[in-house]
């Protein structure tokens, strides 16, 4: 997480400098009506500050113990166990997408499209959140043979750890 947070925070620092330089130069030479550029730069570095701080926090809470993907000498066994839950095929994304497209049509042709859009969208939200049977109990190192379901897969590496 160190490289990740440094990358984002580095971009954040650059944007801060850019915003300050631009602000000063506009104040000195530019037209007094050009405020949108500064506003957009401020929002840009704020967005990166949010993300960079989150990544930094993720790095710090590990107290210097790197993840397997951050270690130069890690082997596949170090990442053994369940990687994550990966939902299998699902009809809900296309339903939600259609709902959003109908919502967009409402902006063009009138509000009645919105009714279809809202029904599709919230129906899809409901289907989406109730479909997954992800269990919090699955921790890295679990035996993947006991997992798996009709709605998704637990992909894992190194099923047999040397303990």
């Amino acid at each position, binding site marked *: *997480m160190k*490289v*990740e947070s440094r*990358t984002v925070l580095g*971009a954040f620092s*650059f*944007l801060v400098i850019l915003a300050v330089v*631009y602000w000063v*130069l506009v104040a000195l*030479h*530019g*037209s007094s*009506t050009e405020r*949108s*550029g500064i506003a*957009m*730069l401020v929002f*840009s570095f704020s*967005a*990166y500050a949010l993300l960079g701080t989150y990544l930094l926090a993720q790095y710090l809470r590990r107290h210097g113990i790197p993840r*397997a*993907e*951050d*270690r*130069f000498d*890690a*082997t*596949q*066994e*170090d*990442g053994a166990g369940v*990687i*994550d839950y990966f*939902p*299998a*095929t*699902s009809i*809900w*994304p*296309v339903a939600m997408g*259609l709902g*959003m*497209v109908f919502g*967009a*049509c409402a902006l*063009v042709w009138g509000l009645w499209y919105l009714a279809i859009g809202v029904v599709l969208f919230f129906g899809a939200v409901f289907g989406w959140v109730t479909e997954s049977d992800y269990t919090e109990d699955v921790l890295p190192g679990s035996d*993947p*043979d006991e*997992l*798996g*379901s009709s*709605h998704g*897969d*637990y*992909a*894992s*590496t*190194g*099923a*047999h750890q040397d303990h």
Partner: protein
Amino acid sequence: MTILEERPQLPFEAHEPSLMEIVPGPRPRGIVKFVTSTDHKQIGLNYLFTALTGFLLAGLMALVMRTQLIVPNNHFVTENVYNEMFTIHGTIMLFVFAGPFAFAGFGNYMIPLMIGAPDMAFPRFNNLSYWLYLGGFSLLLAGFLTNNGAAQFGWFGYAPLTEAIHSPGPGADLWIVGIGLTGLSGIFTAVNIITTVFTLRAPGMVMFRMPIFVWNILVTMFLILLAFPVLTAAMALLWIDRHLGGGFYDASKGGQPILWQNLFWFFGHPEVYIIAVPYFGVATEIISTMSRKPVFGYKGMIAATLSIGALSMGVWAHHMYTTGAVLLPFFAAMSLLIAVPTGIKFFNWIGTMWRGTIVLNTAMLFCLGFLAIFLFGGITGVILAQPVLDFQVHNTYFVVAHFHYVLIGAVMAGFGGLYYWLPKMTGRKLSEKWGKLGFALLFIGFNLTFFPQHDLGLRGMPRRIETYNAGMGWNFLNELSSIGAYITALGVLVNVWNIFTSWRNGEIAGDNPWDGQTLEWACSSPPPDHNFEALPPIRSERPVWDANHPDMLTKVGH
């Protein structure tokens, strides 16, 4: 070097099913698979072929334009149709084809493979992104079916021409929501890919061992996170202007038309890099593999990509020099600075090829074509970055020629990417014979189309005029340019034909047809669900090469 000797020999045998176990659910096929699949490979293919469809449609529109311009005082199409053609041509090429083809198509397919992940971090979210993209594309096209036709104000839709009084009818609204939806899809893809790269890498795949392609897409995604929300906001303001009388861009209501330009180009210039940077990555992978060498200056390449990304946030107003409302020295300096990291990249590409064993197949030829064309576009870019020169040629065909050299240059690398990666996606190689013919036609046709346009611009031909008088001295150059466009179209058709015939009948590729270096060549072609049955040890930025050539291990510098 001692490093080489200290490295232990790491045995790796592919297709040994003991390292990764997958418990698959039921897998549908056919149209149900196309609609419901959350597999990043299926979604990547959906993106690639939807984007190619957009490319063919927008290319057809370009042919209509070139046919209209082939002789002076031509009446092949009406003014309105011509305006629709260049507007939707530009919009589709930028929002539907060039960007998503690379970052969503190749990105989706290749990133999990290249970092050793089973899938993207949010598979269903990924599927949703595709439907928003397809929805946006369809709404853009739907404009042609409305009474007043599609939008007619050019792909950057300057205010006040976009206001309801100047552009009435649903065509312009469809343009707004179509771009809004593809933009939303881009933001979702960015969130997905950033999370995937940060959290789903294989053990040992540290950030500085990721392929350059992954780094470039990552930088692109960070640009999207800043650029696309601004675009969406600009579109929302425009919609409020048109329907609720907002007056944000309407001077008569106290608004500022120039605000649109600032908002649009704050998105629009990063967008150029959102399009180009992924293709830099594709070219890097191909050049490195086909030269059979590691990337020269790996970290320098990453630093150059990061600098391009950072600098591109401060150059938006170089599209607005002639408005007289921007800080010329600031934007000129920033724009010229971008040439430096791009130059570093060229240096590194040449360094990668230097003393390599170059395999001159179609993929590599496309990359060499990319180097030549993109370099030329970059040089005219340096010309345009200087206000004194830009004032002379602003809004002429010189600018048209410049950005087509930049964008088609990048897309050349994308075609190379198809020749390079389709064997992984389909299991079959594309025909080299047809491929080389397609490349030759594209390269010659493209240059014949756009090189004369530089001169046309210098002779004062403005962009977007639908016809011209015979006495302007533009006749011959326009004729050349149109003939070039037909040759380019032929080249595209040859390549499309090649893709479709090779899909079923091509030579069987095998898992690693190019003796590749990065992780995607460690799984079968096409890869199974959740990608890897076994991963080679990752000890450098080219683990598959190290596993296959234990006598020629990559030197590691850490």
